[in-house]
């Protein structure tokens, strides 16, 4: 047994409710456990309790006992526990504090007071495992998100803890980065480390874990084998269910398949292949009704090129956005997605080519003028909140742009559930609430186009559902939506068109099904078709084979 919680309750100082509430938990050596639950269910606090940061670093009220590798965490300081249990935090930037990747990996080893030879040996081992070979002499802060994550992981596994914890490691990774991480975690398993993963998006890792623990309001709401837990009624706990499980559930079918093979076997067993594929095809055709594109486009991007420090980032990018469309911009990290969207309101200017908004050339127009037509909801709402109250925060844009429509603002307050929060300081809100404030603030000026930058990253299922609802409402009001995302499941469900960006070029543009069918473009952009689409294709193929 590597970890044991005995009746643990904890609340942060000044907090009213208990973040952990009478938790009993045992994890065995070498076991892989997925901890799921909605935002605020206590997942991150649980991780911190495993390495002693709670209660040593965060003070507060603490009841019960946690044993890590047999050590009582209340009796041993963090610097005695860190060799037994290591945590990879959510924010990669804040956990890399050395000059080079190599010294990042060495830091913990120096803390352990290891001999020179031992340090070299472990350095070599960890860098190989976390695939950091070429990066060892680079400064960590100039690496990509996926690379930083691997450095953070490497710096922890170098300590060879018997328990490794990862707090939402998949949030900022693109599909390729997620694959790399899964591969590394599989090797960790063979090294005999116990693994605790915290994640909303169950499908990222569910096939590789032995057990799921569902956390709800600081208590364990359900636990067991993945298949068993998902077969139970877990929809109230804010879990983003694996896509095939959700599909089966929606169609009222028995079985909770985690993989494509499971799903096909299940359908064969229940003798439902033909009716199921017919229904699935019907659904798909219902969704792919193309929108009328007769109205003049909102945005016209014509052959835009842009380079950064002499390196081309965008090359001849060309597309149009029409009224009422919901378009997903997808592609690898570093493909140029952020650079592209920053052109839409003039934060960046093309080096060649032109960009028209509502038919007007944007060259020479200030950002403040363009931003009345193009609104942004950034990934991190903390980048913009600065007013003393939520109300003033939402009013900031309209006031700066001289467009203020009180009845529209009131409508937004109701729509985003902010009415009871209007006088609160935005800084005291939860992350999900902040996100809603930034949404309302962007919409307050009634932009024709709204750009959502990774709207689902780090958000739980209830936010995803709200977001889907907002998107539908906006489309009904003929607002155009551009969704920048790695979350292809979300993009396939809610966008009616995909733009695929790879190495600065748009390599595919069309309805999701058509893009996913273009396997060459998908591979080039490092994307994988959604499981629902894969299932549909597999069933179609089975039908053809029979015929």
């Amino acid at each position: 047994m590597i970890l044991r919680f005995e009746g643990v309750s904890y609340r942060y100082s000044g907090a009213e409710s208990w973040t952990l509430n009478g938790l009993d938990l045992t994890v065995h050596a070498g076991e892989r456990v997925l901890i799921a639950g909605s935002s605020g269910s206590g997942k991150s606090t649980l991780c911190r309790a495993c390495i002693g940061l709670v209660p040593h670093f965060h003070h507060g009220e603490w009841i019960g006992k946690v044993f890590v590798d047999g050590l009582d965490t209340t009796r041993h300081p963090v610097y005695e526990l860190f060799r037994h249990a290591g945590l990879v935090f959510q924010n990669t930037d804040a956990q890399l504090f050395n000059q080079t990747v190599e010294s990042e990996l060495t830091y913990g080893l120096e803390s352990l007071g290891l001999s020179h030879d031992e340090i070299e040996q472990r350095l070599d081992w960890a860098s190989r495992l976390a695939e950091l070979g070429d990066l060892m002499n680079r400064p960590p802060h100039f690496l990509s998100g996926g690379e930083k994550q691997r450095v953070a992981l490497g710096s922890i596994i170098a300590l060879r803890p018997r328990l490794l914890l990862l707090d939402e490691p998949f949030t900022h990774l693109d599909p390729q980065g997620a694959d790399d991480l899964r591969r590394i975690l599989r090797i960790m398993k063979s090294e005999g480390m116990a693994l605790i993963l915290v994640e909303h998006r169950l499908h990222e890792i569910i096939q590789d874990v032995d057990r799921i623990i569902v956390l709800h309001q600081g208590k364990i709401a359900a636990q067991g084998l993945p298949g068993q837990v998902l077969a139970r009624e877990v929809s109230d706990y804010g879990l983003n269910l694996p896509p095939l499980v959700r599909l089966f559930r929606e169609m009222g079918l028995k079985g909770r398949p985690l993989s494509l093979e499971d799903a096909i076997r299940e359908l064969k067993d229940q003798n439902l292949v033909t009716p199921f594929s017919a229904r699935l095809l019907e659904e798909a055709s219902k969704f792919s009704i193309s929108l009328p594109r007769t109205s003049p486009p909102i945005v016209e991007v014509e052959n835009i090129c842009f380079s950064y420090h002499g390196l081309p980032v965008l090359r001849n990018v060309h597309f149009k956005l029409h009224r009422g469309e919901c378009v997903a911009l997808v592609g690898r990290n570093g493909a140029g997605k952020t650079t592209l969207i920053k052109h839409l309101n003039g934060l960046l200017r093309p080096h060649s080519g032109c960009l028209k908004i509502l038919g007007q050339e944007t060259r020479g127009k200030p950002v403040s003028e363009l931003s009345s037509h193009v609104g942004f909801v950034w990934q991190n709402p903390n980048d913009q909140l600065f007013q003393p109250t939520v109300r003033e925060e939402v009013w900031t844009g309209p006031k700066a742009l001289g467009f203020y429509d009180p009845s529209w603002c009131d409508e937004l307050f109701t729509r985003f559930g902010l009415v009871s929060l209007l006088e609160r300081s935005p800084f005291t809100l939860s992350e999900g609430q902040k996100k809603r404030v930034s949404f309302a603030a962007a919409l307050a000026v009634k932009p024709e186009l709204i750009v959502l930058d990774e709207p689902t990253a780090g958000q739980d299922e209830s936010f995803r559902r709200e977001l889907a609802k907002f998107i539908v409402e906006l489309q009904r009001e003929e607002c155009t939506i551009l969704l920048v995302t790695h979350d292809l499941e979300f993009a396939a469900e809610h966008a009616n068109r995909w733009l695929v960006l790879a190495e600065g070029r748009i390599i595919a543009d069309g309805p999701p099904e058509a893009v996913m069918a273009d396997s060459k473009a998908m591979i080039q952009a490092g994307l994988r078709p959604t499981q629902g689409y894969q299932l549909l294709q597999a069933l179609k193929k089975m039908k053809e084979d029979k015929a």
Partner: protein
Amino acid sequence: MVFVAAILFMIFHQWASLTVSLAILMAMVLLLRLGLPWLNFFKGLGFAVLTFFVIAWLAFDFPTAVVSALRLLAMGSAFFLFFQTTPPEALSNALLKMGVPYPFAFVLSASIQFVPVLVRRLRNIRDAQRARGIPIEGGLSLLTHLPALAGPLLIQAFKFADELAEAMEARGFGIPGRRFRHVPRFRWMDWMAVIVSVAVLVMAFWNPCFIRG
């Protein structure tokens, strides 16, 4: 050494000696192939030098203005050279060697290293605020819209500091008996630099003629 240079520049009060030292510094900049970064740096410093020059001219006289502008430029360049050529790790190692306790030395070098991270955050914040229609275009508008920039930056910096502290604790920052992979050592070059610096400083104070000469 850079501190010694800074003190020297403060004592120099003739434009000739300042021009000579500036020329030496520039030669070093070119020798180390730092011309382009220096120009970028000068874009920022130049503005300060110019303001300083105008104020000194109005308040005192023309020669004073020239000398103080040159002095500021020389000092800025000296510090620029220092931070361009000295990795923060070397700085913290040197401090450790001088007997500064480990936590202080480490925090100093780590905070230098987080400057680019904060600059990146600030850029994100500026973009986010401009995208809402707040006209932050540089110059004076930076000042009038300071809360829109400083507010989010401060909040993020506090949160960041907290997370950083957690991460450091979790890798044994507080442990007694840390053992270094590369033990910081003073080589003879370092000792030479110290001796030369001390000698120059002593001479400068002992014999004011030296400066004028």
